């Protein structure tokens, strides 16, 4: 580990021992076992005679380890991760909030975890009841008319929502050709439009970082299927002319799609259904506290207005005349299925537990605290960092590295240096409408004390950028590993472990790929 070079004294962190741990394959040795099966209570079989030519004889480098080694392996690996449980994740538009533990407990109750998606409806009333109550809550929160819980993540929700828009237009006789997407949008928006067979038309933001109304008016025509709008936008600003935006689209028969990534700024304070949105997705793994788990699972319910209801993915949960719940597959205009079964059900359980823990007062207070936190950070740091858009922030604030870049210190460097001070980096270089963006979303889960630690750390880093820029540009200094060579990783991909021919352990590089250079 290289020598730590703090300018000030970091309040949050000190260095500690970090254990090394090889890959599990390098620790494996023949004959070790981490399992014991139950006694077989039926006659044993000869696999080779049952399967003939289809029988497998070798499982290659699959590991052989005992239970204690497995526990230590994963426990040691876990200590190399940053996590919400260790501190703040100021990642913008990611809404890294606290993941309540009671949610984990209830999702593991036997009748819930062991429920098979094909068990009879009469024996699934609990599962359907969870889906029904969650749906009702999310409809009320968004102000929309109806919902599907089937999409597995936010981008999958976008896919579903745009397919709903497409089916709606097709039912009117013309699927239309293009989707408008602001230049501040998340990359999944244009990627989704493409997967749904639409062209992407880029909509430039105005000087306030908001939708340019005049430009929108020019661009919306009879070929426009929808505008995909993130509100509040990725710079954390509410589109205050949202009603005009909706009117312009609706006048030409186009729909307003809202990317709900930033819904944590709105819950209980305003409702997309009330301000003209036709269809939107929610990220249960952002706004509704289901754990991010190192990148997933998510869940991306899509709420919409009545006009889109006939097209919802099937099945939908319905209440029968006798009051019991059922799955309705008889949906002739449905866009079809977007996923097998009914969605990431385990996430529905957690999201509903979160809603119950909060109630209407808790959800409103949550939103208010999230916005309070972002504005507190903004107030404390706007003298230190450049703020391109001065419009009032909601749940996140986007600074830029403009002042520090003069000394060669970029947003990515300061993000890495933040790691030395015990924080995860903020979102680096996004949104693209802000050159050198430093996008910060604290969420409601941070105490004033933790916010002050972050503010303190960012001020120290700004001072370092003036007095000792190299300490920032070569950071992090306190982590187990220093900056990783991502270029070589992409040019000579090593994507799995392989034993070397002489029996010693080594990873195996694929053939160098020159194509990577063009990217």
């Amino acid at each position, binding site marked *: 580990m290289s020598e730590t070079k703090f300018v000030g004294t970091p309040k949050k962190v000190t260095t500690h021992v970090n254990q090394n741990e090889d890959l599990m394959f390098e620790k494996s040795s023949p004959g070790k076992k981490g399992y014991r099966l139950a006694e077989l209570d039926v006659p044993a079989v000869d696999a080779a005679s049952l399967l003939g030519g289809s029988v497998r004889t070798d499982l290659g480098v699959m590991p052989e380890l005992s239970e204690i080694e497995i526990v230590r392996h994963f426990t040691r690996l876990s200590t190399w991760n940053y996590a919400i449980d260790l501190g703040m994740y100021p990642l913008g538009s990611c809404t890294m909030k606290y993941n309540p533990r009671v949610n984990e407990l209830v999702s593991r109750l036997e009748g819930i975890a062991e429920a098979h998606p094909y068990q009879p409806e009469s024996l699934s009333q609990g599962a359907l009841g969870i889906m029904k109550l969650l749906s009702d*809550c999310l409809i009320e929160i968004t102000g929309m008319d109806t919902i599907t819980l089937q999409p597995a993540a936010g981008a999958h929700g976008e896919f579903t929502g745009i397919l709903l828009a497409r089916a709606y237009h097709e039912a009117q006789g013309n699927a239309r050709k293009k989707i408008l997407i602001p230049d501040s949008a998340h990359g999944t928006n244009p990627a989704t439009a493409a997967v749904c067979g639409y062209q992407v038309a880029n909509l430039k933001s105005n000087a306030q970082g908001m939708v340019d109304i005049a430009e929108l008016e020019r661009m919306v025509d009879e070929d426009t299927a929808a505008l995909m709008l993130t509100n509040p936008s990725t710079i954390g600003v509410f589109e205050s002319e949202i009603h005009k935006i909706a009117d312009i689209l609706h006048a030409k028969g186009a729909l307003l799609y809202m990317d709900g990534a930033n819904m944590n700024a709105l819950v209980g304070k305003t409702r997309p259904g009330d301000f003209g949105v036709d269809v939107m997705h929610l990220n249960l793994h952002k706004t509704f506290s289901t754990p991010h788990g190192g990148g997933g699972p998510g869940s991306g319910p899509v709420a919409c207005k009545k006009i889109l209801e006939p097209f919802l993915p099937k099945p939908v949960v319905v209440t029968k005349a006798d009051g019991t719940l059922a799955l309705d597959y008889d949906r002739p205009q449905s866009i079809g299925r977007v996923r097998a079964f009914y969605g990431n059900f385990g996430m529905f359980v957690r999201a509903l537990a979160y809603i119950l823990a909060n109630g209407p007062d808790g959800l409103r207070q949550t939103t208010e605290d999230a916005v309070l936190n972002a504005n507190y950070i903004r107030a404390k740091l706007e003298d230190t960092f450049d703020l391109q858009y001065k419009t009032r922030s909601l749940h996140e604030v986007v600074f830029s590295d403009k002042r520090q870049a003069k000394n060669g210190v970029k947003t990515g460097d300061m993000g890495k240096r933040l790691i030395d001070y015990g924080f995860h980096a903020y979102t680096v270089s996004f949104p693209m409408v802000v050159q050198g963006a430093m996008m910060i979303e604290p969420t409601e889960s941070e105490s004033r004390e933790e916010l002050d630690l972050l503010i303190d750390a960012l001020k120290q880093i700004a001072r370092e950028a003036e007095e000792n820029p190299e300490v920032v540009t070569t950071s992090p200094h306190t982590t187990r590993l220093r900056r990783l060579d991502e270029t*070589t990783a992409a040019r000579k991909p090593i994507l799995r472990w392989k034993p070397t021919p002489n029996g010693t352990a080594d990873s195996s590089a694929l053939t160098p790929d020159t194509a990577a250079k063009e990217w």
Partner: protein
Amino acid sequence: MRYLPKSPADRKEMLAEIGVSSIDDLFATIPEEYQFKRDLAIPRQHGESEIIDRFREYANQNATGYASFLGAGVYRHYRPVLIDTVVSRGEFLTSYTPYQPEISQGTLQAMFEFQTMICELTGMEIANASMYDGSTGAAEAIMMAVRVTGRDGAVIARTVHPEYREVIATYAQHQEIPLAEVGYAESGRVDLAALDAAINDNTACVLIQSPNFFGTIEDVAAIADIAHKKGALLIVSIAEAISLGIVKPPVEADIVSLEAQSFGVAPSYGGPFCGVIACKEKFLRQMPGRIVGETKDADGKRGFVLTLSTREQHIRREKATSNICTNQALVAMMTTVFLTVYGKEGMKDLAVQNLAKAKYAADTLGKGAKVLFEGAPRFHEFVLDLGRDAEAANTALLEKKIIGGLPLSKWYPELGPNASLWCATELTTKAQIDAAAEALK
């Protein structure tokens, strides 16, 4: 509200520091007419014990205490205790996508281990770090084959999970990928002659499932031959990953789309599960989803990073290989622990136990019913013709606290109303099988 770490005084002082007099000033950019003034009409705030009580009530309204013979893409296997031990660690549970590799090495190394084991199990050269599930993974694999071959059609076996086929149809329609279906022979396997006839010069790929929806193991080599002779890729979908412990991996395939739910993931009424795409190395640039790669840090130490991200939406936007962003990372972590616990010997032993249970179940239940598709090897599922209406038979079984096999007429009307799909795993006991056979007499 117990999740909110602020005192009333904190809030007041922070508002003063910001320079506003009330919290509503911070929401002033929302036009007045859209400000929501009433309470949301949702259940009131619950105490922790009330939440648990409420979900216990829900849990009790679901089937508990039943013997179940359901499989059909969601399998009940024993889940070693270590899985929850590991994924309950906040460092894994509450971490973000590992975009900052210096503080994400735990997740990244485990994902690299996951990719390695998936390659080893499927016989493929590379694997990604997960997809949403087996159904969307299969759809993405087809889109990948279309990009690789420059052709635009897909031939799909009727023995692929019917819900997977529905998902593929949803994805394919707007990509303008024409889909053709190919039926099954008397053996329950893909009809090879019909397959040969269905592939044309425009066929990008053939998609099969093995073991297929009926539990039958396909002749992957023969199907690969037919596909490859006509320049099409072969995609093999695997819904029951445990089969890979004893069934030869589909090495002849070009792309494998695996649903890894069986590796220690609860049925959970259908999700979250763990899809993954594995393929030949030469298709790397067309692979969707996140991939972890090995590299070195500035001091030359081994480390891992998310790599080849120029395929992905956050770099390429509308030109990305897929719109996927969030994947199923924590579920992939669960499968990684499962595979480590069972390991090289255990995966085989476990798969063989499944074979044994299914053999006993088919033999025993087959005494009062006809086992269909006897002409080909199978793993742990089989189709029974009960000789009477399968729905009615299941209703009668419920009285004995038994959930029978899945009636098939909804998706396979050609099999008649009496056919159902049965599954036995290592958790199915002899007593349960005997009781079901007795009840069906």
